[in-house]
């Protein structure tokens, strides 16, 4: 059986990151946009953990921990803003938020 190298993990990470980018591109609903952002963060986490593991270093895991902490706080603040916006307007579509006509 073929051995799993660092390249495998990096390609998987790029594939997941591309899926997240597709989500960012095609979503109109802000909640779905948050889901796509989570996918992006997770793809980067895999890359960090794989590089750290293959070079025998702990730094990659440390950065993955901080990314998870950042993702958690992003969800808390972003969802609070989203709930507030939904209470006021009844919509969470991105196109309804363009209040500045330039």
């Amino acid at each position, binding site marked *: 059986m*073929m*051995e*799993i190298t*660092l*390249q495998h*993990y*990096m390609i*998987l*990470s*790029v594939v*997941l*990151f*591309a*899926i997240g*980018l597709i989500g960012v*591109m*095609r*979503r*109109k*609903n802000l*909640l*779905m946009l948050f*889901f*796509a952002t*989570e*996918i992006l963060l*997770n793809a980067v*986490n*895999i890359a960090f*953990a*794989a590089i*750290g593991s293959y*070079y025998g*270093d*702990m*730094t990659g*895991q*440390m950065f*993955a*921990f*901080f990314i*998870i*902490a*950042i993702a*958690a*706080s*992003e*969800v*808390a*603040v972003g*969802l*609070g803003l989203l*709930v*507030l916006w*939904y*209470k*006021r307007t009844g919509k*969470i*579509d*991105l196109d309804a938020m363009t209040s500045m006509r330039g």
Partner: protein
Amino acid sequence: MEAIAFYTFAILTTVMFLITVLTSHALYALSALAAGMIFISAFFFLLGADFLGAIQIIVYTGAVMALYAFGMMFFDTTRDVVEKRTSPQLIFGLSGVAALMVVAIFTAPIISGNIEALYPAIDGVGNSQMVGMVLFTKYLIPFEVAAIMLLVAMIAGIVLAGKKMDHSLTLMQDEIECINEEKEQV
């Protein structure tokens, strides 16, 4: 054995995230995202980062997904999500970025031949112990800053989703009273 596990979980994760991205139903997207998060923790276990895998399950599927589930109770999730027809410039630019990333990934080993481990793992020490040793010596200040950031996020969440937030955030109390008095005079 490792290859079988890697390919299985790679396919499962990719399929789950594709469902998340492509479905037009919010509940399916949430469930598929939660499943994908759990499958991703398998990669961390495969890589020997046990503590990170446990944190992935606890924080993502425990905290983040529960938060999303609570948030979705506010929204109308039975309605299908309307898709956006984006401008071709944006799609062109983002596809260019994705292609550039693939090139960078494939050329990275040429450049990174002389990388040495800054904090190498010690033999005979478990992963959780090693994480603790590095986190509380070399990364103590980022750890504390992350704690403060989580505190700020918690307070922000409480304030934003609180009961009195139907009113304006920027107007102070006496200004609102002034406006009310002006309305009464009119």
